[in-house]
């Protein structure tokens, strides 16, 4: 079962931060406050899009073929993701 990393608080929708990291080998636990990288703050479908886009060598044409959508639709999706990432950068530089 694919487990999704939540990026927003389910109670107040504020961005979540990582407060604890654990080594699965030796059991070391690190506590702190680490903001999530911008890419991880995207929705699951956006992350999958970025992943596939990179695997296809950054070709929107290939993405369109794979997704069964038109080129403008895929380009628009990428532009929307770019906008989200830029907004994350502006709020949390």
């Amino acid at each position: 079962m694919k487990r999704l990393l939540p990026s927003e608080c389910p109670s107040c929708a504020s961005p979540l931060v990582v407060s604890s990291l654990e080594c699965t080998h030796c059991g070391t636990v690190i506590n702190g406050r680490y903001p999530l990288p911008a890419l991880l703050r995207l929705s699951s479908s956006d992350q999958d899009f970025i992943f596939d886009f990179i695997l296809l060598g950054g070709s929107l044409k290939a993405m369109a073929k794979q997704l069964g959508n038109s080129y403008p639709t895929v380009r628009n999706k990428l532009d929307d993701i770019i906008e989200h990432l830029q907004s994350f950068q502006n709020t949390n530089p």
Partner: protein
Amino acid sequence: MNYFQQLTNPFVRYDSKLLLYLGIPAFFIGSILAYWFHARYDGAFDLHFSTGVNLSSAFTDNLIAVFSLGLIFLPAGKFLNKKTRWIDILTVILIARLPLYLITPVNIYDFTIHTTEQVLPLIVNEGPAQFQISKILGLAAIIMITLFFIIWMFILLFQGFKVATNGKGMKLTGVFVIAVFLAEIVSHLLFALITKI
């Protein structure tokens, strides 16, 4: 994607090149239909029936209409999004005009021309007492069919423009409405200019 979505917004799913293979033949077929059914595309979104339509004028009308739409909608698209491609706008225009071409058969055997010529003077001059119900119903059917296809045309144009530009919200709607008015004005100016030549 269901059939309704494919008919009202094929631009999401189908690439511009594929739609162009449909749109360009549709342009020629639409022009031939105009010749057959005595229709004139005398505006960006206009369709009127009149006798004396020849093949050359049918093609010219259609070309002017498409050109006017491109002249306005491409800069409008670029205004919304610099990445807007001319091929996407052209495809949208060609596909959006398909419903308009489908209206032309309502004038089969000059039915619409004859019906309009008979009914309208009666309405204007002699009042309801002289109405022939069959003629009124015929005219009403023509109006309903025409309205349906005109609405479909604008839905296609708007949805296509939205996909081509990635426009959103009030900015998209505002630019679209202004572009529609400007395209209509430009097309009529071009028609006036060309008929004078």
